[in-house]
């Protein structure tokens, strides 16, 4: 298929892998730890077996850029409290339906009678509101700056059309404060970043310049096809080998230096930064979440409905926090694969296909199994 197959050819992958091997051999030990920030990259890495192609002295650390994964338990409970209210039609994206709160998930709430519906776009939720004027339609908005513009445009449309029964439960987050929090985290040593792709189409590549400037680490904005990721790794390794630390843009077919002005304007029109927002695993990060501005606060579901707003600790057995920070690998979690599996997730990293645990469970267990077989038949 055109525009897809070109980025998935094994032949070029082999050449890139060879180049990475050659350059990284010059760097030698200890292994380079590179973080792919986006869940989309994590998914690609596991789905295409990219780790198989990397030399042993390059380790990929899976970052926190999976919006479903970083939603804290308390926010899921808040969503459930709104969804269970009489007269509410609660809408959100597919993955979010399965994220467990402290007791149930939206999918279970739906089976118990709550009117929860999956939508593909916030505009679908607005359409529902117009078609059901006697119901309250709430859209659970989540995601980085990638999805925030579409939520903003929907709120603007609701304001323009005077749709009074529509509101947004806003969980939009921003990538730069999260990156800063990671870089300031004492338990994490990283040598470079495979930088966000789709987020950067909105916010541009320039915003990452603090990463080389203040922390001395290279960052390469990367696309999501397997060749994109492999080429980005090659670019980072090359920078390190040459003693450079810069922001480079591999994803030039979508990302510009300054981003998308229209999308940014929509975000600024509707949203402002919260003082603090809690991230699963990373804790409370200043100015990392978005909420509706005063002009649009009549569409804010948190103001329209009383939500518990409690901070709820993750289940003890769950180590999503360490996994989101890249401190632990999925298989190092005690419940991975047995109690916590995609059909019965305990933590959010096992829910979204972009979560490191789900990606690893679904696609990546093979190398370990092969090892087991090799051990079984010496």
């Amino acid at each position, binding site marked *: 298929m055109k525009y897809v197959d070109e980025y998935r050819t094994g032949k070029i992958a082999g050449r890139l892998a060879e180049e990475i091997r050659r350059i990284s051999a010059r760097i030698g030990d200890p292994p380079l730890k590179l973080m792919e920030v986006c869940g989309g990259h994590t998914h690609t890495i596991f789905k295409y*077996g990219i780790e198989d192609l990397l030399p042993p002295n390059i380790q990929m650390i899976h970052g926190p850029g999976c919006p479903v994964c970083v939603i804290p338990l308390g926010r899921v409970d808040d969503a459930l409290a709104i969804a269970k209210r009489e007269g509410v039609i609660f809408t959100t994206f597919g993955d979010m339906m399965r994220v467990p709160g402290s007791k149930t998930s939206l999918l279970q709430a739906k089976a118990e009678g709550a009117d929860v519906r999956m939508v593909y776009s916030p505009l679908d939720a607005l359409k529902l509101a117009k078609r059901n004027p006697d119901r309250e339609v709430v859209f659970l908005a989540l995601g980085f700056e990638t999805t925030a513009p579409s939520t903003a445009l929907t709120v603007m449309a609701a304001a323009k059309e005077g749709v009074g029964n529509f509101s947004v439960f806003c969980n939009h987050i921003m990538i730069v404060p999260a990156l800063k929090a990671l870089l300031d985290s004492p338990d994490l040593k990283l040598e470079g970043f495979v930088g966000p792709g789709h987020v950067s189409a909105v916010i541009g590549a320039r915003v990452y310049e603090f990463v080389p400037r203040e922390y001395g680490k290279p960052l390469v904005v990367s696309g999501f096809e397997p060749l994109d990721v492999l080429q980005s790794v090659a670019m980072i390794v090359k920078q390190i080998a040459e003693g450079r630390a810069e922001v480079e843009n591999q994803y030039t077919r979508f990302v510009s230096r300054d981003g998308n002005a229209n999308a940014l304007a929509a975000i600024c029109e509707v949203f402002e930064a919260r003082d603090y927002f809690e991230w699963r695993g990373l804790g409370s990060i200043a100015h990392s979440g978005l909420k509706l501005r005063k002009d649009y606060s009549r569409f804010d579901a948190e103001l329209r409905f009383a939500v518990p707003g409690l901070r709820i600790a993750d289940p003890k057995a769950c180590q999503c926090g360490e996994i989101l920070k890249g401190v632990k690998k999925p298989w190092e979690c005690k419940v991975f694969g047995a109690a916590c599996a995609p059909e019965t997730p305990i933590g959010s990293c096992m829910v979204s296909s972009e979560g490191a645990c789900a990606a690893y469970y679904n696609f990546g267990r093979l190398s370990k199994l092969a090892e087991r077989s090799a051990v079984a038949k010496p």
Partner: protein
Amino acid sequence: MEFTTSPLFERVERARRRKPRVKDEFITLAHGAGGKAMHELVEGLFLDYFRNPLLETLEDQAVFEIAGDGRAPRLAFTTDSYVVTPLFFPGGDIGRLAVCGTVNDLAMSGARPLYLSAGFIIEEGFPVADLKRVLQSMRDAAEEAGVQIVTGDTKVVQRGGADKLFINTAGIGLIEHGARFSAAKVRAGDRVILSGSMGDHGATIMIARGELELETDIRSDVAPLWSLVEAMLETPAGIHAMRDPTRGGVATTLNEIALASEVCLRIDEQALPVRDEVKGACEILGLDPLYLSNEGELVVVVAAEVADQLLAQMRQHPLGRDARVIGEAQAEPPGIVVLKTAFGGTRIVDMLVGELAPRIC
């Protein structure tokens, strides 16, 4: 990274083989999606209540003898309910699906489908003109499949008691040869053959709902497979397992076979036939064609030495024109489906989790 954690993988595989239990308090749509949750419901609940040797095999049909003396011909018996929405879609409708689905479940045991029953649950207010269209299409499909609809039932429920029209069919077929197929009979070295391109039905239904505002030329593949199976049965020796990959798609069917036979099925991504339109829809929606349902395809696992001959026979039939070998069975690692990606890596293909899209059949 040093991997010294192989006990972990024992743990994962043990968990995958754990006796399924239904832990949920309420039925969710995932319980009907054909993936893991549905397996839990069937094996953890229905099987527990109805357990008997015929049901225990968990094949798509029960196969039994009337006389029980080992000489009488064997019969196959199956049932299926159809709740697809929309009722009419490119390439078929609920009526054609209701006949083909049951005919195909019989055919997968190698049985010649003979008789069907048809039960209709109709919502008050359903247009008679639409009912006529469905009945016409059932008559046509039955004729195509060589079966007769010989008994039936009708219920009308008040508005809201059902969604427009639900159909249940049951079928009886006759097995005229000695071969016994089972998902548990696959051996290392066997070849896996798929009869045609993947995902047409699942993609058609998702697009026909109009929620995605996509326009394509994809048509459902819904068709009665008996005539293809009949051609394959000219030389039944060497056929070990045969299934139609409906809900949960080819991935789920292959996992069922891998687990039942405790073999590894190694599939080559480049050999998997997928139409460009289906591939495109999957790219947009973030779906994998391996999990999309099919209503006119079959997966057959066959001894290596007769694979070429069977493939040639299949290709002479219109429903098997695009048949191809998509992979083979190996001994290790048991119970796992492995995909060799076109990119050069390998990955696991597990069963469908959750619901991909409800009410596709």
